[in-house]
């Protein structure tokens, strides 16, 4: 128990305390104070996380047990925090990126009332707390607490501006979609408890031989359902683009540091289970790939700056699932990390643009912002280059690692993945061109209002830009630099069992360096062409009033998926609800309840007449009743 890592409880505890302070004291605290507390605790958590990280790097992994959460004869669930390579890395991402987003929010949300400002920070802190709980939990139950917590916080934050009803709809949509996934997760946990009687990672993974292939496949598929909901994969991805209704820092937090990476983390954590279920793995790969491709096509024609980024997140998450599906767990975690950097950067940059535009989100009304907002412009450009996979920016390495693994597993995966990468480059530079290049297309007031954002906004942008550029250098492929893939080496203990197992399952055919170079060259050159094309085409974008037709219209309308869900799920449920409301509730249930009342009322009105005050009539009744009793006694 005397391990230095026993103090890790402070990491989630500090945000929780800040949540309570900001939440309960929201009427007393000034904006400065609540912003200071809110960001300060995350910074403190980040510093502890760095300490923890270096402890883990020196080989000190630890499961900290605090108290028994559930303690029955057959099931014992401890309140445990597991600190190892995987969770320490996630801790850094969550608290680090989370801290920058908190700092950014102090400026971005400055126009709110002090009360709402403090409430916002309380929610943000709760969000970070839940996510920390999720990654630190030493068993599936603790993870599930955090899992539900992030779902709740996403609801609260997406619907933060609750006076606009469409925001509430988006919040509810996110919550319900997540609930569908959570249900799968919960069933998987029950299955584990039923078969193994434990939910501790360590016990589950060491007793895995006791599970049949059917059990493992079932559990992993159910876990994957959970991941689909949380990480916005087909078919439950529609909540994520709608989640753009929340304030921009929230979008950044959901997309980069917390929430959507939960599914990736959970599968990476359970890697051994998934490696032993080949069917589930190939399903994950296919769904991930389909999502990546599908979301990228939608992003091509969106005009809302945040919607493009949202679909790009869905698409990038698809890549991560592809990586998990082909067994490249390190690649998935690597991409989570680089994605956290560049997506936080892009969202915060978009937030800076929206801030300058006075709330305008439609890219058709932007353009030419380059000369007004130089820092935002430069950092955003770096972010776009990163997501497009240009070397030597971060996503180049992580995406390349995933695509190489995909090629090893199945060249078709690689082909689709690489086409998606081209589309990514295209839509990101369409976004860039429409926003920063060309002439300004907004109104005169907006043009007058344009300004570079304050330092609380630009500073996080600069830091994130540095990370987005350099963050990939911890995972340089072996062929460029010997021992360059330090992330792989760092995460080795977590994934070693899976790697051994998959090595014995599949005939290993290492890619030759020439193949690897070719693959890399194809993806970079293709992305570069797409990038240049988009740059040229949308650099001089003019507003056109012509109606889009054919496939462009379908893309602009997101393939009508929302309408499709509306027609096959929402409408029937609403009509059933309407039927239950107007017929079953009003007629049957109300009728029955009111009927009982009426019957009692009526009968008592009648029976009351029996009590007429005449003693002799009472007597008569008594005698008659006695006689009847006698008769019953005698003859029945």
């Amino acid at each position, binding site marked *: 128990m005397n391990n230095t890592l026993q103090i890790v409880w402070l990491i989630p505890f500090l945000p929780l305390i800040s949540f309570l302070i900001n939440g309960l004291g929201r009427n007393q605290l000034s904006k400065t104070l609540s912003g200071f507390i809110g960001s300060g605790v995350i910074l403190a958590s980040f510093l502890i996380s760095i300490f923890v990280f270096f402890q883990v790097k020196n080989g000190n992994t630890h499961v900290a047990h605090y108290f028994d959460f559930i303690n029955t004869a057959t099931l014992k669930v401890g309140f445990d925090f597991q600190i190892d390579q995987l969770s320490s890395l996630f801790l850094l991402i969550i608290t680090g990126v989370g801290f920058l987003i908190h700092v950014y929010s102090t400026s971005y949300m400055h126009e709110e009332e002090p009360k709402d400002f403090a409430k916002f920070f309380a929610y943000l802190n709760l969000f970070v707390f839940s996510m920390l709980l999720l990654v630190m939990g030493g068993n599936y139950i603790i993870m599930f607490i955090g899992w539900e917590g992030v779902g709740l916080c996403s609801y609260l934050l997406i619907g933060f501006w609750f006076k606009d009803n469409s925001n509430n709809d988006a919040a509810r949509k996110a919550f319900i979609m997540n609930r569908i996934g959570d249900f799968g997760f919960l069933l998987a946990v029950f299955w584990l408890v039923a078969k193994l009687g434990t939910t501790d990672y360590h016990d589950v993974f060491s007793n895995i031989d006791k599970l049949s292939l059917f059990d493992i496949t079932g559990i992993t598929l159910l876990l994957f359902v959970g991941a689909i909901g949380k990480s916005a994969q087909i078919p439950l991805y529609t909540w994520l683009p709608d989640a753009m209704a929340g304030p921009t820092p929230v979008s950044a937090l959901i997309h980069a540091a917390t929430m959507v990476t939960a599914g990736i983390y959970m599968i990476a954590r359970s890697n051994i289970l998934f490696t032993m279920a080949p069917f589930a793995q190939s399903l994950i790969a296919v769904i991930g790939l389909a999502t990546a491709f599908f979301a990228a096509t939608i992003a091509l024609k969106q005009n809302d700056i945040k919607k493009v980024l949202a679909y790009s997140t869905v698409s990038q998450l698809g890549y991560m699932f592809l990586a998990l599906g082909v067994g490249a767990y390190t690649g998935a975690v690597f991409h989570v990390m680089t994605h956290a950097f560049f997506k936080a950067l892009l969202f915060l940059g978009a937030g800076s643009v929206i801030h300058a535009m006075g709330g305008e989100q439609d890219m058709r009304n932007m353009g030419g912002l380059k000369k007004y907002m130089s820092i935002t412009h430069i950092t955003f450009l770096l972010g776009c280059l990163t997501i497009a996979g240009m070397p030597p920016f971060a996503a180049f390495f992580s995406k390349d690692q995933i695509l190489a693994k995909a090629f090893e597993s199945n060249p078709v995966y690689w082909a689709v993945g690489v086409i998606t990468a081209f589309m990514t480059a295209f839509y990101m530079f369409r976004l860039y061109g429409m926003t920063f290049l060309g002439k300004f297309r907004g109104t005169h007031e907006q043009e007058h209002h344009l300004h570079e954002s304050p330092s609380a906004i630009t500073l996080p942008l600069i830091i994130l830009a540095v990370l987005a550029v350099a963050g990939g250098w911890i995972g340089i492929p072996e062929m460029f630099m010997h021992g360059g893939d330090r992330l792989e080496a760092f995460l080795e203990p977590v994934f070693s069992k899976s790697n051994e197992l998959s090595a014995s399952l599949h005939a290993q055919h290492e890619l030759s360096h020439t193949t690897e170079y070719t693959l890399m060259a194809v993806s970079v050159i293709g992305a570069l062409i797409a990038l240049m094309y988009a740059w040229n085409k949308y650099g001089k974008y003019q507003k056109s009033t012509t109606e889009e037709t054919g496939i462009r219209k379908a893309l602009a309308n997101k393939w009508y998926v929302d309408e499709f869900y509306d027609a096959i799920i929402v409408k029937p449920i609403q009509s059933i609800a309407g039927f239950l409301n107007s017929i079953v509730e009003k007629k049957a249930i109300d009728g029955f309840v009111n009927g009982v009342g009426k019957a009692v009322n009526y009968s008592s009105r009648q029976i009351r007449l029996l*009590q007429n*005050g*005449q003693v*002799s009539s009472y*007597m008569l009744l008594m005698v008659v009743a006695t006689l009847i009793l006698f008769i019953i006694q005698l003859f029945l």
Partner: protein
Amino acid sequence: MPINYYIFLALALFSIGVIGVLIRRNAIIIFMCIELMLNAANLLLVAFSKIHTATSSLPTAGSDAQIFVFFIMVVAAAEVSVGLAIIVMMYRNTHSIDVNFLNRLKN
């Protein structure tokens, strides 16, 4: 003497009592009829105890029921004193002993 005579006598007395209570309105008559029912029951008690213990050689056989009857009589006497007092009060208030006047509980 067979028990039947006693039973029929008691039955007749009881029925007279019941009918008297039901049809008369004079409180004192009703009161007397109640006493009549009470004594019909007493009569049965004594008769049954005598028949029941006829074969017993104990000198005190059947006396328990008779003691019981005495008790009932004592209680009835006490009850009569209370009942009559009530009727007197009733007469003072309403100048009538017709029970049908006493329907003020209605409404």
